[in-house]
């Protein structure tokens, strides 16, 4: 198991792109951190109202679900850039040179493909929810395209981060 370290930024226009994506990923995770605190406040608030004032809150459960989606998807790209996503490096830890580069590229291509599939299907999902005006069945009557868009945005950012990493690896490897 390992957590890969992010490399130094590449030069030139790719470097600029890398910095932009990096800033977006960081902003996403920072927003996610705020969402963590909001979630905590939200559940704590409902505990106090339910057990101290005996007036259960009806909307916190539903909201918490959307907040979980937000925490994960907003943090995914930053986690990728920081090499937090765990992997099994039993066979690959010893790889050097071109093999190592190939494996790193492959890992990021996998991540980009999965993120891409989520983005593609999330576009269909959000468009459907928006066009047909799908609302949640809970107390909030949330227009579903809103929380679903967070999934879309987070996956897009994750995919972008993975692609930029692939490009950076390839550029760095060029003699």
């Amino acid at each position, binding site marked *: 198991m390992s957590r890969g370290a992010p490399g130094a930024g590449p030069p030139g226009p790719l470097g600029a792109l890398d910095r932009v994506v990096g800033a977006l990923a960081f902003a996403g995770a920072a927003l996610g951190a705020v969402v963590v605190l909001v979630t905590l406040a939200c559940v704590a608030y409902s505990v106090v109202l339910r057990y101290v004032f005996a007036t259960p809150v009806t909307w916190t459960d539903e909201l918490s679900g959307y907040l979980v989606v937000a925490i994960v998807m907003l943090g995914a790209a930053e986690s990728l850039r920081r090499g937090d996503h765990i992997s099994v490096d039993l066979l690959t830890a010893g790889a050097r040179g071109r093999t190592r580069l190939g494996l790193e590229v492959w890992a990021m291509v996998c991540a980009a493909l999965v993120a891409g*599939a989520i983005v593609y299907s999330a576009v269909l999902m959000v468009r459907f929810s928006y066009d047909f005006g799908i609302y949640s069945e809970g107390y909030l009557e949330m227009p579903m395209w809103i929380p679903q868009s967070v999934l879309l945005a987070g996956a897009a950012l994750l995919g972008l981060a993975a692609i930029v990493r692939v490009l950076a690896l390839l550029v760095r490897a060029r003699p």
Partner: protein
Amino acid sequence: MTVAIILLFLVALLLTGAPIFAGLGLASLVIMLLTEGNVNSVADTVFAKLNNEALTAIPMFAFMAHVMVRSRVVDDLYDAANAVVGHLRGGLGVATVLSCTVFAAISGSSVATALTIGSSAIPQMQRFGYRPRDAYGVIAAGGTLGILIPPSGPLILYAIVTESSIGALFLAGMLPGLLMALIFAAWCMASAWWRGDVRSARWVGLRAAGKALGRSTWALLMPPIVLGGIYLGVFTASEAAAVGCVYALAVGALAYRNFGWRDLWETAFETVRTTAMLFMILAAAAMFGHAITIIRVPAELVELVIAQGLTPLVFVLAVMAVIFVLGMFLETIAIILITTPIVFPALLELGIDPVWYGILLMVNLELALITPPVGMNLFVIKGIAQAPLAEVIRGALPYVVLMMLGLAAVLAFPPLALWLPAQAGFGR
């Protein structure tokens, strides 16, 4: 047959070193493309899995443990345990197990437990004549209690995947967790007696022991606050986690006075990273669950079990054997999320209690944490002690056997896991 092919394909993909969420997700995409011809349902599947209020318990328990560690509330735990039991034969080992047990009831992570207790216990044990490998072994093993003794991140994920009660699973993990702790402690005492060359700490006297315990009061109060509410049926797991967070923040900021706004921010940021890492695997596992259902893997397994006339015990033994082997190579969360959707329908068909199975799974995953070549806790200890991996592995080996004893005990006496939740009124 299909199960074997899919598992092999998946393990091969994961062994390429791709992030687990990416490997698992890609395998699922391939299956979906081969069968349905499109991946249109991916986002729906992922959204439905993540949009779950019960999942908030994991970031909140993680946040709570981060706060307790960062504000140094848990730093005195090992010293307190040492003051109380350190004078026994093998007492420093027993103190390590004891402090791991308490920390496990604060944190839901085995790695965090080994990391936190290990950094204070390893130097101390070596000073008292323990062979390095023995010190490594007891921390590797004691640390694994983190996922069995509630709260436990992996147990929550298991509960989410199987739609079981988190509260019931938490309570079910308690007695087996304490039993394992007792077994480890007994082993520490027996091996110290047998080897004869490890020293014990001096008995510090009742007053000093009381004082040492007093320094850890705030940490020691945490488990009853968090678990008490669940036991009494008052709180759900996420409510208990929120209460625990508020308590941890209050203790850190007001009693210890070393948790400020900056710490709050960094803790929240750390929590996002941990949560994103864990739940991306959950998202990929949702895709995987969907994919294997399309190709009817779980259903075929049910048919196979019926056709072969397997008894529940034989089936559970077979599954445990497979998981033990997977545990040598894969990481615990991945194992839970990959195997559970495959075997769960068969478990229900055979009338096996999901809570009991969940605890068996957890004990088996504790083994996974210390079985080479891939065992998270082995790596953690290698890291903090700067020790050769082979030495850590050798130290952990006796505990592999002891944990198998624990696994056998839960297998042979299901009430060990099921009695407590039944007492608390969790039933079906």
